[in-house]
């Protein structure tokens, strides 16, 4: 059960009633429903503030998993051009990953995305956005191609995690993810990663290393699902809500920790309540990031990328005897 979907029910009913009243007043211009409509609209606005005004981490987890949340395809569809490229050249084409070349506001780009389904049929085809090794290897192939043809990489992250199944282990899930992360740390083109929904663990990070990390306001990025974390550390899955708060997985928390660079605001009620404006805002931010990186030499971009990741994490020292790295 999605807590946002539950909370939205009253709101959607209210909106339905406003819509009905509006069409009724069009059909019967002699009867005035203006004051009723205004009252309902005010109620609607206050309900929106109440529901969405200050989302908890747990509510954001559910917002990120909302069944109507825009998927990667919504953003890709808004590019000027896009040609999808399929397959890892070794095993099969993984539909949980969409990759290809295109243009974003005239800029040539390589696109890599994790794609969840919208309905049961699409979810079966896309494996609920859980990527298999061949999906990561398709990504790796396209990262190398991006470098060869000097195409900046943009990625869209939306997965609960890498596929945890027998086939994935047999085909080397660890190695596939490890190679993607390694490639992104050194690829000689700018990389702009955007977390649009769920950023689930290492499976998300495989496409989530870059020069700029952008998050939609209600997206999450986490070391583990709150449910999984609760089961492991509390040995009690019902502690998931508490785990969500402790994990610091919201865009605001992660900007505070210095891990992500930009937060793109969502419309009131979340991205799914106005997909078009959400898509436009994110594409604008991606374009800005690409332009800022585009004026730097690739050596400078790589140096800054190195420094960015090299400095994540802090510790304390008992004394000053430590050996400093070769940075």
């Amino acid at each position, binding site marked *: 059960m999605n807590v946002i979907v539950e909370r939205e029910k009253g709101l959607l009913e209210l909106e339905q009633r406003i819509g009905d009243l509006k069409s009724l007043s069009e059909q019967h211009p002699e009867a005035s429903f203006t004051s009723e409509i205004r009252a309902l609209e005010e109620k609607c606005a206050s309900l929106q503030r109440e529901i969405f005004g200050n989302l908890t981490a747990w509510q954001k987890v559910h917002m990120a998993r909302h069944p109507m949340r825009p998927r990667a395809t919504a953003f890709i569809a808004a590019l000027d051009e896009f040609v999808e490229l399929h397959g890892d050249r070794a095993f099969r084409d993984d539909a949980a990953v969409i990759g290809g070349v295109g243009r974003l506001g005239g800029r040539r780009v390589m696109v890599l995305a994790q794609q969840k389904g919208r309905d049961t049929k699409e979810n079966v085809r896309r494996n609920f956005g859980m990527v298999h090794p061949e999906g990561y290897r398709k990504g790796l192939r396209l990262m190398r191609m991006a470098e060869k043809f000097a195409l900046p990489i943009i990625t869209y992250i939306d997965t609960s995690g890498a596929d945890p*199944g*027998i086939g994935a*282990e047999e085909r080397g899930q660890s190695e596939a993810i490890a190679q993607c992360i390694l490639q992104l740390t*050194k690829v000689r083109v700018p990389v702009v990663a955007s977390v649009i929904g769920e950023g689930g663990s290492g499976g998300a990070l495989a496409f989530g290393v870059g020069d700029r990390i952008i998050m939609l306001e209600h997206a999450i990025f*986490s070391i583990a699902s709150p449910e999984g974390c609760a089961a492991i*550390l*509390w040995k009690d899955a019902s502690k998931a809500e508490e785990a969500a708060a402790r994990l610091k997985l919201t865009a605001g928390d992660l900007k505070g920790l210095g891990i992500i660079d930009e937060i793109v605001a969502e419309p009131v009620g979340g991205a799914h309540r106005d997909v078009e404006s959400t898509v436009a805002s994110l594409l604008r931010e991606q374009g800005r990031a690409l332009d800022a990186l585009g004026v730097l030499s690739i050596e400078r971009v790589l140096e800054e990328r190195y420094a960015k990741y*090299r400095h994540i994490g802090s510790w304390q020292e008992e004394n000053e*005897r430590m050996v400093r790295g070769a940075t």
Partner: protein
Amino acid sequence: MPSVTDWLRGRKRQLERREPGLWVKCPDCGETLYRKDLELNLLVCARCGHHFRMPAVDRIASLIDGEFHEIAADLEPRDPLHWTDVKTYPQKLAADREKSGVIEAVVAGFGSMGGIDVGLAVMDFFFRGGTMGAVVGEKIALLFEESACRGVPAIVCTASGGARMEEGLIALMQMAKTSAALTRLQAARLPYICVLTDPTTGGVSASFAFDADIIIAEPKAVIGFAGRRVIEQTIRQRLPDDFQTAEFLIEHGHADLIVDRHQLKAQLIQLLEIILPGARRREVLA
């Protein structure tokens, strides 16, 4: 600064205090083993060859010729998320320090192996299940950078349940940090050999572990991405016993070779001699 041999001896003493029992039962064959004999046999069951999990300090002693110069020895984790579950993170760290005799889940440094200078990092499963937080990531990254700087190969022995939950996304990002540092070693065209020991999973297997030039696994070690329980819950069936073992990895083409602990040092030396003929050699004492 105390000599490194003293350091090793000191750490050994801590370990002896930790487990005072005289006898140990082999989980594989049930044989009762005299602890001293087991330790002399590199924690391998004399009857069935079962490889017990090895503390980092014992592993280092089994691989390095004489002196080991530990780096970043006194880095201690902070509590960036102010984490609490049934205990606070600092409470857990203190308990593990007491239990394991190490202050973090990896010990890294430099020494020689058969006279070849190497960088060596060894993870310790007895500290927080070998999980990787900011300090583990930092020490692994320093090892790669320093090895590149000194022009020596790097060897990492892994034993880890993955990224450390109590440090949240900061821990996950250590996968990227260690990978970034590894690119320095690669750019210097120096070999990196990873020895996967029981268990190696999650964020460690899915980052620097499987990025190695040569991947060695210890017999029957459990190695994989997802935990066995997670997979069983997902597919709703019991997995075969050999699933995610070193032997499974070899069968599916994900590791280069399985090496018994007694042959590990000789095997590493042989590989380094062949792939790095110009490696700096020193006189081997003893």
